[in-house]
């Protein structure tokens, strides 16, 4: 086992050369890539955190808006319902009123018609009775007297009806 200074120096120089070469060709570039990658990952994480924050905020806003919309919707529905109810009431009352008016009109028309019919019936009956009476008693009364007598009789009949 011989220890030689020249060999030791040679090996030290050899190691130094390898150290220098590896440092500049391998370690520095690769570590630079590691650093850049770490930075990129850090930025990505930050961006992700920011995105999560923004998403949370948006979610909150969305919830808030949803709630507002719900309230608005409920308010609109309520209003619509109330309005509808009111309208329905109005329509119903108008209809009732109209119905009543119509009924009244119809009743009046019916009364008039009845009166008219009665009048016509009365006149026809009078004529018939006159004709019958004339035939029966053979005596012709003057028209006015006949008419008066018949009316009295008819009124009596109507009353009895």
């Amino acid at each position, binding site marked *: 086992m011989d220890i030689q200074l020249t060999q030791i120096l040679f090996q030290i120089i050899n190691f130094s050369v390898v150290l220098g070469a590896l440092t500049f060709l391998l370690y520095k570039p*690769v570590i630079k890539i*590691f650093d850049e990658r770490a930075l990129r990952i850090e930025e990505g994480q930050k961006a992700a955190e920011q995105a999560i924050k923004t998403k949370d905020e948006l979610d909150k806003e969305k919830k808030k808006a949803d709630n507002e919309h719900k309230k608005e919707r409920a308010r609109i529905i309520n209003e619509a319902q109330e309005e509808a109810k009111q309208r329905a009431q109005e329509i119903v009352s108008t209809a009732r009123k109209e119905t009543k008016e119509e009924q009244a009109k119809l009743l009046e028309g019916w009364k008039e018609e009845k009166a008219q019919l009665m009048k016509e019936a009365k006149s026809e009956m009078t004529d018939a009775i006159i004709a019958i009476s004339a035939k029966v008693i053979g005596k012709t009364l003057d028209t006015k007297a006949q008419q008066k007598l018949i009316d009295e009789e008819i009124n009596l009949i109507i009353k009895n009806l």
Partner: protein
Amino acid sequence: MAAGLHISISAERLFTLGGIDITNSMFTSVLVSLLLISFAIIVKSKLKNVSKPTGIQNFAEMIIESLHGLVHGVTGDLKRTRLFFPFISTFFLVIILNNWLGLIPGVGTIRMLVNEEPTKIEEASEQSSLLVNTVQASETIAIEEDAVSENEAVVTTEESASETEEVSKEETTGEHGGPVAVPIFRPGTADINTTISLALVSIIVTQIFGVMYLKLGYFKKFINFSSPIMFFVGILELISEFAKVISFAFRLFGNIFAGEVLLVVMAFLFPVILPMPFYGLELFVGFIQALVFSMLTLVFFNMATISHDEH
């Protein structure tokens, strides 16, 4: 069988370059360095800033991220991590590659003929024949058990010992001190010079980092006149710095060289299945030793940058 057994405790000279003897461990260390640098160049050329890296970039990122995490786990401070990381990871990669390179078939067995100095030839032949004889003797013991008579066994032992000596001499020195067959590759960490140099780098850089962080206050650790006990502790600290070099160097060298010897011997005894568990063991030892060296260096770096008041 004896032709496969070559064990030398020191690295062997392959050729001389500019007056410097280039040993097989230096050659392998340079090869490992070139491999690492080539890997770095390939990774740099294919590096893309993407979220999902693939292929070689993924592999490089996996190694670097693991080592970076390991360093950061100890320092707990990004500034210190970035300062220590290149040293720690280079120590780890260089040591683990050197350790594992010794396990590749061909390393230690592919040889070239080299003209050795006579003194070295004698040393090498002595070492080789000594080791070969030891192993051969153990083999012969196994043969003895099957032998019919004791006398026949003794004769076999003597014959085989003389045969082995001849073979090992032919193998290492040639016939008349001629060229020697030397392995071209030898793991760098199986050479004490490499481990000493790595230990020296580790300890010198520790001192530099200590001065960088604590300025001149760093030396208070070694020279402290506040009390006789502290003065004595300072001397012990100073001695421990030198002891660290020795401990670093010999731990790594011892483990890896012992592993190499173990594998060679196991392969020599029974080359087919027997070495397999030992290969697994050596893979583990290679990893553990690289980790131990790197972690200890990291702890020393960290301790050197923290003042005594903080301790």
